[in-house]
């Protein structure tokens, strides 16, 4: 569904990603792991067209995303929850979700689904986003992206700095999206989350692809390899 072919990207002259290729499949969670500076967030930005590619291309269902301006990428079914949430703080929860749902006319059905996944948001609909707790903000950021009913959902460290109950809710939502048939690309640093959720793990190091693990490999002999790519 989502395919990166020898993608190289960076910031200005500073190259971060160097020929990275992988494929995320529908109904699966792909965990992107690597130490700080490995190029995880840069990969997400490159997929969304927020960084120009130096080499390679990104495809979604055969369409070349890297040829499109960033605002056209979501139209092809790619939702993105960046690190740090980046909500529309002055808008209420309901308005934030409406902005997400209105884009492609997804409307109330998508909104109802999000509120079912995150019942906490239902109690906060009239509250301004910048007054929510960190966990609730993350739920809203994720819910807003889910309003697009994405075929591919990119989540950049969604559980970073959250308390355990919130972490569970976010993971459960990622699992829900997988069950809905979406390809979920999850940047994650916690081993327990990776082992619980991942169908596939892609390991990055200094912008290079250092290997991929399937779920069965993850549960057996290559766990040490994975652990070497976690942490700061």
């Amino acid at each position, binding site marked *: 569904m989502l395919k990166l072919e020898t993608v190289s990207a960076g910031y200005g002259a500073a190259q971060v990603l160097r020929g990275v290729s992988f494929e995320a499949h529908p109904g699966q969670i792909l965990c992107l792991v690597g130490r700080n500076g490995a190029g995880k967030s840069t990969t997400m930005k490159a997929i969304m067209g927020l960084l120009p590619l130096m080499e390679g291309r990104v495809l979604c269902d055969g369409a070349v995303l890297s040829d499109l301006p*960033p605002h056209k990428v979501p139209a092809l079914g790619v939702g993105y929850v960046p690190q740090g949430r980046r*909500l529309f703080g002055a808008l209420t929860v309901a308005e934030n979700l409406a902005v997400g749902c209105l884009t492609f006319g997804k409307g109330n059905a998508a909104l109802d689904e999000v509120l079912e996944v995150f019942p906490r948001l239902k109690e906060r609909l009239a509250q301004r986003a910048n007054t929510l707790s960190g966990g609730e903000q993350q739920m809203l950021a994720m819910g807003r992206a889910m309003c697009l009913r994405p075929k591919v959902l990119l989540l950049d460290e969604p559980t970073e700095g959250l308390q355990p109950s919130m972490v569970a809710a976010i993971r459960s939502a990622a699992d829900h999206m997988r069950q809905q048939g979406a390809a979920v690309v999850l940047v994650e640093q916690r081993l327990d989350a990776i082992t619980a959720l991942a169908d596939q793990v892609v390991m990055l190091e200094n912008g290079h692809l250092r290997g991929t693990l399937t779920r069965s490999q993850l549960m057996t002999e290559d766990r040490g390899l994975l652990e070497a790519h976690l942490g700061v």
Partner: protein
Amino acid sequence: MTTDLKKSVILHAGVVLALFVLQFVLPAYHHGNMARIMVLASYAIGYNLLFGYTGLLSLGHALFFAAGLYGAGLAMSQFGLSAGPALVIGVVAGVVIGAVVGGLALRTEGVAFMIVTLMFAQAGYLTILYFGAYTRGDEGFVIAQTERVLFGVDLSAPLVRYFAAFSLFCAAILTCFLAVKSRFGRVLVAIRENEERAAMLGYDVAKYKLGAVVLSAGLSALAGAGYALLFGYVGASFASVQYSIFPLLWVLLGGAGTVLGPLVGTVFMFYLIDLSSGLTTAYMLIAGLVLVVLTVFAPQGVMGEVRRRMWRWLP
């Protein structure tokens, strides 16, 4: 209709009703002032759509106000058109200039956007002076009372002028209210809050920003054309940088990103200068001090503070 929306409608309808009733109770001096304030507040409402809701700080809005002012004024003085078509020409002039300026200025952002809009406005101001044979340059020109007639009604008569200014203000505030409550308005706020995220939700940010510039320019031009017809004077001072700064001040004082803020800010500034100039010739010193105090204690402007402290539902 949600409870918050009901409260908003009641509040705004109440303010409009109060302005309507004021025309029957105000003494002649304040009657004239309020008519002028409502036209200028309409200009500020147009400015607020761009600055308060979209987060684009323009320093060239005098160009749009002047487009309406001169569009209507020259249509009457040079082509002998009546007030109705002149008003339409003024608004169309503002919209067209808004689209052109927006299309070019939006290629920049932040400080560069401010500078580019300022330069366009200065170019407009100098153009008015350059074509002095038609515009009468700095001196400006007067539209005769006999020409300021709309649907057979003399717009210069105090009661009519007040009512016309009131109608213009109602049109501006209704446009603003509907715009900010619509999908379009929500997206503008989303762009103001986080442009990149809005794009990541699939919105063509450039198109929405251009839409905001055009709508803002259209409302500013409507106010400019209204000013020409109601007060009968068309002058280059309205195209100067001062008239680009004024709406920014009115909106900041009243509350950027609030529907009522521009009215509150315009009333406040108008009477602050009016009253302080009656006390001393150094009235700008008093005005400046009051502005500093207000900015320190109400950094979000009057209505912004009201929203923060009391009425979170205020649009």
